[in-house]
């Protein structure tokens, strides 16, 4: 029995499948691949797959992570080849290795975001320079206001032909998670007009020390 951590891309059409659907899709892909998957014991054995961090519907990613348990050791290149042969277009395994971190080590993620519209740059910077950015968050006990200003790390922004290109780091993982859409919604509210999100792409999942989650 051996655990493998697979990093994969979820792009194109695949960004429209939900986390639950991705799980089912991956289970079937592993079954088609013929890899010696490990099944849970018990009355309803099921194939063991674990996703340490979910991705919201509509976002692309170059760095999704999935843990797969096999009944025996298989060369990592074989795992890549066989899995990729079974995956639909838009899902592509890029690397396989032994898990280095625990899921709870994840603290944040980096995103590329493209917001459609002209001359958004100044508005964006004004938005970020606010003392507080209050958003309403639904919790089990009801709604509460949270200040997300200290949680956003905006690394870069630049205007291009198709809109404003942003690179953002946001908290991710068990300790707290902020979706890009929460930030964009707050920006939209600040701007007082609808802003179309053309692209959200996760490019890195990292641990507290800033190193890649692997």
């Amino acid at each position: 029995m051996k655990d493998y951590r697979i990093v994969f891309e979820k792009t194109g059409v695949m960004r429209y499948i939900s986390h639950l659907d991705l799980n089912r899709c991956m289970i079937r892909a592993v079954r088609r691949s013929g890899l010696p998957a490990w099944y849970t014991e018990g009355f309803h054995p099921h194939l063991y797959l674990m996703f340490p961090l979910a991705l919201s519907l509509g976002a692309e990613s170059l760095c999704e992570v999935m843990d797969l348990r096999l009944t025996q050791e298989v060369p990592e290149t074989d795992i890549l080849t066989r899995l990729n042969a079974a995956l639909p277009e838009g899902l592509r395994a890029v690397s396989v290795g032994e898990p280095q971190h625990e899921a709870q080590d994840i603290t944040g993620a980096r995103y590329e975001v493209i917001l459609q519209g002209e001359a958004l740059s100044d508005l964006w910077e004004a938005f970020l320079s606010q003392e507080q950015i209050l958003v309403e968050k639904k919790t089990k006990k009801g709604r509460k206001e949270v200040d997300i200003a200290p949680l956003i790390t905006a690394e870069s922004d630049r205007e291009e032909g198709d809109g404003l290109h942003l690179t953002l780091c946001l908290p991710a993982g068990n300790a707290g998670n902020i979706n890009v859409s929460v930030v964009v919604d707050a920006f939209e509210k600040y701007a007082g007009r609808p802003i179309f999100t053309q692209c959200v792409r996760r490019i890195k999942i990292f641990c507290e020390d800033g190193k890649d989650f692997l």
Partner: protein
Amino acid sequence: MNQQIEPFLLEVQRPSRYTGGEVGQVVKDRRDIAVRFAFCFPDIYDVGMSHLGMKILYSLINERPEYWCERVFAPWEDMEAVMRRERIPLYALESGDPVREFDIIGFTLQYEMSYTCILNMLDLAGVPLLQRERGDAIAPLVVAGGPCCCNPEPLCDFFDLFILGEGEEVDLELMDLYRRMRDAGAGREAFLREAARIPGIYVPSLYEVTYHADGTVEAVTPRDGAPAVIKKRVMTDMDRSYYPDSVVVPFIETVHDRVSVEVLRGCIRGCRFCQAGFLYRPFREKSVETICRQGRALCEHSGYDELSLSSLSTSDHSQIEEMLDALLQYTADAHVNLSLPSLRIDNFSGSVLEKVTTIRKSGLTFAPEAGTQRLRDVINKNVTEEEVMRTCRIAFEGGYTQVKLYFMMGLPTETDEDIIGIADLAQKVVNLFYDMPQRAKGKLQVSISTATFVPKPFTPFEFEPQTGKEEILRRQAVLRGAIRSKKIKASMHISDISQMEAVLARGDRRIGAVLYDVWKSGGHLDAWDECFEAQRWYAAFEAHGLDPAFYANRTRPYDEVMPWDHLDYLVSRDFLVREHKKALEARTTPPCRERCAGCGADQCLGRSCF
């Protein structure tokens, strides 16, 4: 993927209904294709992707390198709003190309309440709804197949042709003819006249219907050499009949989210209410070897972990035990669950149950259909109360605690005694459970579900009136009053939909105008309770001076010309009349395997069925 739709996908629920891109989809190079076929299922993706017939015909057509079959489904209301707002025409999932650019647009007619959805899909596609307004260009042809083609008269205004019976051969014959005539420059009318010569093809525009003063059909008269009677097509050898070894694997969870291997076609039971039991005759089964090979290939190619054995009555396969043994040898090791959705009560043996339960344990579903033995004899549901009890006992011993019982209400000759019998039968099941010392742990739940009976063409009850809505409501109240135990949960179907279903099932060509109006006034997904509005329908009937009761609630004499009399589904009118008379005397007919009832369906085999 359709590029126009992409910016709006996050506005709608379950966007992957609309993207395509699934494993198993067939994508071809447009430049290599001679004929493009848009296979349209008139309901949403989640429902349509569960349909076995579509999977068979999709793969069958795509086996031909020069033909390309793609899938088209109805958008849910949220997506329809986006498509209309943004003027995005209905498109096929594989290429994203507009449906109106296809050579053939083919709908499957699975249930009557989907008819308005067909009109809506044609409209979304930008194809003229009325056949006569499509001009003489040969494309796009609008065609339909499926069980409701046994009486397609309400849809005659909208279709170029209907394909009767099983499509595995005739669909390709039709496409071959289309290709030949299109390449020779033929127009629509010339093509249709020629297509009408293919056995199983019904071209409605080549038939004139005349009516008596009382509204019944006087005659259906062919012209231009069209055959007076069109006979359905049948695949005579199931082992040689085409069956796919791979399917499109959806991302979202569909209604039947599993692979299915069809184990047999037809049914030996002869339940008199069941249209499928007569339409799909004669009874033909696949060999155990074929079933295992096909089931295994489907699991391996799809990655599904559930394999369903599909048929009208799987336990009527002559080698059911051998089949299960052979399948279980593969499925147990491959971590595949085997599901048998259509088991019958009477021959449901403990060993069969054991085989199924080694894989998965959930609720059991039985359909006694009627509450008393007398009424079960009327409908020829040859199940006795002892058999129901015996099976429940086996099930309870095997650890089951949930039993679902399906019944119909409004069956011919039904009285309040029969209605109370439904509650009594459910109560006996409850009592049985608590009288068993070695019963399973867990909470017992007996669910009874009653649907309103809808008389259908090509059944012995095609002559019968449907019970009216008021009376059904009264009987529902009688049933509710008769239920004593809290362990029994009852759910009952709305009867407005049932009446419309009854009208469409036995309607004539005049209903076409009603359908058009219902669609025009907003009826787009009438098969869905939450989208169905009875008022639209009643208003449309009134506007055209038609009475739903004339179609649904009238007794039809044996010698009446039915709107579908020019269509031949192999079962003879004489047989149906015989069965109807026996029904009224509560006399049963044994299963075909015991004694041939002489329905006539064996004519296509050139031998007796057994």
